[in-house]
């Protein structure tokens, strides 16, 4: 009976070891296959991202510039006012009664109302108001009141100008960027055609300062 027990125990032990080792090896192989698949997916994403970056490298700077002008990072009321003043001058109009409302913000976009009057020939007034839809920063005419003033017309315009904070973080290297759709491309072309402002940010000018009376 002892002679039978020993080989039987060996067979049973072998089967147990075999099953245990099989489980370990199978788990390792499954994990490696999953890691490989994940790595290959990452390769595809990275390759797509790299080729997308390489192909848009030259264009993206122009797009970024025109989009920053279209939707600035800070309060755009001064830029909008500058554009209105420039358009008024081009149409031989008098721009006055300028006032700027308070900032209104939501999570994505902030806006401010810029209110002004323009007076001059009716066609000049209408041309100027129409031209406001093609200026950067993006502005919407929320209200227009036109009144006849003798032979000319006066328009009181409430212009809503928008801006939005810049993104503070970029996505992870392995995150896809996403392609620009034809609609977005059309929008980009349209935004690129907006009348660009003379300035985006006001920088302090260095003046002579006060004369020191004791230095003489």
């Amino acid at each position, binding site marked *: 009976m002892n002679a039978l027990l020993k080989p039987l125990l060996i067979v049973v032990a072998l089967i147990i070891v075999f099953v245990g080792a099989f489980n370990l090896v199978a788990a390792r192989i499954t994990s490696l296959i999953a890691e490989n698949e994940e790595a290959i997916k990452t390769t595809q994403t990275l390759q797509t991202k790299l080729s997308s*970056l390489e192909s848009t490298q030259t264009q993206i700077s122009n797009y970024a510039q025109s989009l920053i002008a279209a939707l600035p990072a800070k309060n755009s009321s001064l830029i909008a006012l500058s554009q209105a003043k420039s358009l008024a001058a081009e149409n031989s109009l008098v721009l006055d009664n300028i006032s700027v409302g308070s900032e209104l913000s939501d999570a994505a976009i902030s806006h401010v109302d810029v209110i002004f009057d323009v007076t001059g020939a009716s066609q000049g007034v209408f041309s100027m108001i129409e031209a406001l839809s093609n200026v950067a920063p993006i502005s919407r005419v929320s*209200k227009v009141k036109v009144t006849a003033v003798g032979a000319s017309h006066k328009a009181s315009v409430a212009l809503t100008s928008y801006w939005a904070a810049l993104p503070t973080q970029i996505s992870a290297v392995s995150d896809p960027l996403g392609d620009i759709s034809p609609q977005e491309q059309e929008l980009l072309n349209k935004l690129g055609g907006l009348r660009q402002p003379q300035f985006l940010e006001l920088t302090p000018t260095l003046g002579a300062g006060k004369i020191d009376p004791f230095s003489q």
Partner: protein
Amino acid sequence: MAATNINLLPVDLSAKSQAARLGSFLKKATKVLIGLFSVAGLLSGIFIVVLSLQLDSVNKKNETLRQNISALETTEQKTVLVRNRLEKIKILGDKDKAIGSVAILSGIVSSLPSGVSLTDANADLSGGLTYSFNVSDSSVLPQFLGSLMANQSFSKLGIKNFSFSPLSGYKITLEAQAK
């Protein structure tokens, strides 16, 4: 004459022989199992090594790609900025109805017959437009109103007020909704 098998061995000896056969079978099974175990282990080992090498190679390739992408960080930042601005601009939409109303009004004013003048107009964000004209000569009134009715730029057009003053003539106030 048929052959007859006669077992002259004692019963305990016969049982011992069966146990020995079973033992011998178990020993053979042990050898076969060890053989199978070794082959399976070897194949699994090769498979694991191949997979590990493949993973290592793909990871190295990914690392190179990451480095190349990092070298284009400025472009990536600008791309993120472009996407961010585009999403926000899309929220704003591109329809400025007040300006649309002003454009329609501009078209009307540019073709006004003599004796008709625009006195005031109000346009709002919803595309609503209220405008008043002064008509000094009644003979141009049908032509002027006819041209307004023929204007296809409005989805709605109605007369809000119609009055007459001997000094200034007719005053017509219209309410319209741009398409």
